[in-house]
């Protein structure tokens, strides 16, 4: 039906991802140029593809289809927008983080298993599109920044059409109903911005830099590093080792 648009969007996402990979590789031991080649757009060789998982190249997302990924990108970039000194969420891999969180094995038997939110994402994103249609006559991915903000505000405040009776997450019981979709998305976005890069977000430690946080080192912090004057993150990195898997099993780039 809208194959043409679909293809363009996927190509766009892949291009964006290629840039992303380059950025990660550039921040440390830049030894994996083949990764970049794998991620480059391939629409010429395989002809038009309508299924994002059907190409010969590694798909960017495991869970999201292209429209969902574009919708999530639009949302997280308003949830965590770029500032003068920091990037927007999707610029540091937050969409990829969420895609992986939704397919990640839990760390332990009794740890949270975010795979249970897959249905919530499928239905929540579709429902947000319906709401966006009724409010602005467009799907979320085509809204401008102000419209996305209005949509998010309306959903959080339970004033947007269709969201009036959606339950909220409970901090006290440490539970969240799947219908409280935007709460889950917001928390996932924050996780992606500030968790270790091996999970797909916080590229180039940009989230930690945003918060002024220097992050973990195997050597920890000497007593004189517990008080000012404070050395920069780069100074610490020059004389200390990061945890070996900070960027993932393969080293600096896990894209």
């Amino acid at each position, binding site marked *: 039906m809208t194959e043409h648009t679909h293809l363009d969007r996927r190509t766009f996402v892949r291009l964006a991802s290629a840039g992303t990979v380059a950025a990660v590789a550039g921040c440390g031991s830049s030894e994996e140029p083949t990764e970049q080649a794998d991620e480059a757009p391939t629409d010429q060789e395989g002809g038009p593809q309508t299924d994002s998982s059907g190409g010969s190249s590694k798909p960017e997302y495991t869970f999201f289809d292209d429209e969902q990924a574009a919708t999530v990108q639009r949302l997280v970039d308003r949830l965590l927008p770029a500032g003068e000194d920091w990037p927007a969420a999707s610029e540091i891999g937050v969409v990829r983080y969420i895609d992986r969180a939704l397919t990640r094995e839990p760390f*332990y038997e*009794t740890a*949270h298993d975010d795979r249970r939110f897959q249905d919530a994402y499928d239905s929540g994103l579709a429902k947000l599109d319906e709401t966006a249609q009724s409010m602005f006559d467009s799907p979320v991915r085509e809204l401008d920044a102000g419209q996305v903000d209005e949509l998010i505000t309306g959903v959080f405040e339970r004033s947007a059409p269709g969201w009036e009776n959606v339950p909220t997450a409970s901090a*006290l019981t440490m539970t969240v109903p799947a219908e409280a979709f935007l709460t889950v998305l917001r928390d996932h*976005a924050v996780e992606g911005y500030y968790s270790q890069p091996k999970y797909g977000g916080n590229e180039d430690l940009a989230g930690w830099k945003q*918060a002024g946080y220097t992050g*973990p080192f195997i050597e920890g912090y000497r007593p004189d590093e517990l008080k000012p004057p404070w050395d920069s993150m780069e100074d610490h990195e020059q004389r200390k080792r990061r945890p070996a898997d900070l960027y993932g099993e393969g080293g600096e780039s896990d894209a």
Partner: protein
Amino acid sequence: MPDADVVIVGLGAAGGVVARELTTNGLSVVGIEAGPMPGPHDQDELRNVIDARLSNTVHDTPESYKQYGQSSEEATEGKFNLYGRCVGGSSVHYCGVMWRLLPEHFNMRSEFGDLDGANVADWPIDYEDLKPYYERAESEIGISGPDGGQPTHPDSWSYPMDPVPETRSGELFRQGAEQLGLRPFTSPQAVLTESYDGRPPCTYCGHCCFYGCYEQAQGAKSNSLVAMIPEARDSGNFEIRDECLAKTVLVDSDGRVSGVRYVDKSDGTEQTVTADAVVVSGNAIETPRLLLNSASEQYPDGLANSSGQVGRNLMFHMDYTQIFAKFENPTKQNRGTWSNKAVDDFILPNRIDEDVDFITGSNLQLASVNAPILYGGNWKQLYAGGKTPPGTPTWGEGFLEEMSDFENIVWVWAPVEDVPRERNRVQPDPNNTDEWGIPGVEVTYENHPQDFRAQEYVVERCKEIFEAAGATEVWSAGTGTHHRGSSHLMGTCRMGRDPDESVVDSFGRTHDVENLFVVDGSPFVTSAGYNPTETIYALAFRTAEEIRTEWV
């Protein structure tokens, strides 16, 4: 012939101490532990705090919570009580702040009188009874702290190691407190500041509370897992059955306990281990759960429950109490250990210079927000919500502006002493069972009005300290709300001299069954405004001594 001299149920702070003390003195012990032997830990905030919640496996006991007057149908299901399930128990992830209780803490009723709506009583032991075991905990677990000990304590002592070095946040808190004429001091902690007992010193990496000590510094945080379990294993007298969940304590025809029935989680089969004595050291939720689930013909109201006190007098501390400040310049408060400095000047009413309308109090201890993700808030997080000032947007530019101040904050946490109440209790819930059919727990709890008055008082004093230190913004969180759970679980098998009013004697031996012992936070009579674990260690050393010298 029984399988072992003693079976210990739960290998946490107390169970580890008892295991080491008994096995190194020639007794054979089987330890039943519901969780696994933990593998290496790391400094990953997502894995340890957000997704796994407590670095090791958080428990999977079904819980529900209700207030007074609510029926079981009105109870709320959720995760309320936070304890680790692994060998080492919650001592693996704990903050490791260590205290000796004050003499008055053992005599709250004599010192401060009776209180309507509460069940305040004296402990059957005094500080002097426990003092030698506090000393053993400090030297044998490995605790660092300031010379002289706690400034408001009438006793004075030294620790085997110097205290942790001062951080910028500690300096600010100390300066503010000093300006007000208070006596700030370095928090005693189960953290090594030098090589000790074959274990490495702390690297002040900043990933301590809620984490197991990361691989390259493993052992720098002193706990039951690294300080007690290895010697027990080396003794040749110790068998650990991990991932085995106790279902009932078995009773013979004489009414004595004879062993434990448990589920081997690896294959779901039920197994039995027999012993001459049983030590239950789950925690103040799991221990009464097991005793009450062990009701039998001889003990229809639950094992060791002729007093009706098993599961009652549940205490939490006012664990949600948090006070924050923001400063103009970075504090880098995440570096170092969990707690750098403390103030004890509001620990009890008789330490306070003015008349107050409560009988408890609290230690004020500097805490640390390990990583920005924890400042930003997440529904999965411990007592979730963020730690940002009230009114901070949860998203958008305003949220990220606040996040950019993450390294300028200081956080103080106050374990405000809650008074025991008979109605505050944990009961097995047969309608909410775990996957092996064992009844979960229903918790009924409301704070006494005096708890809120004490909380409000110490929160205001802490804010004054921050203001004196030059904070640009001060706020608090978690106040004025009834607690639903905690990581400090106490009181549900209270110790006492009178078998009609208490469950165990001062050694943890149950009044009803002479070869059944309880040691963890359950025997606490009152909660004291201090982290409980050093007292749990001390009680465990004392219980173990009783078992190996008197009981055998």
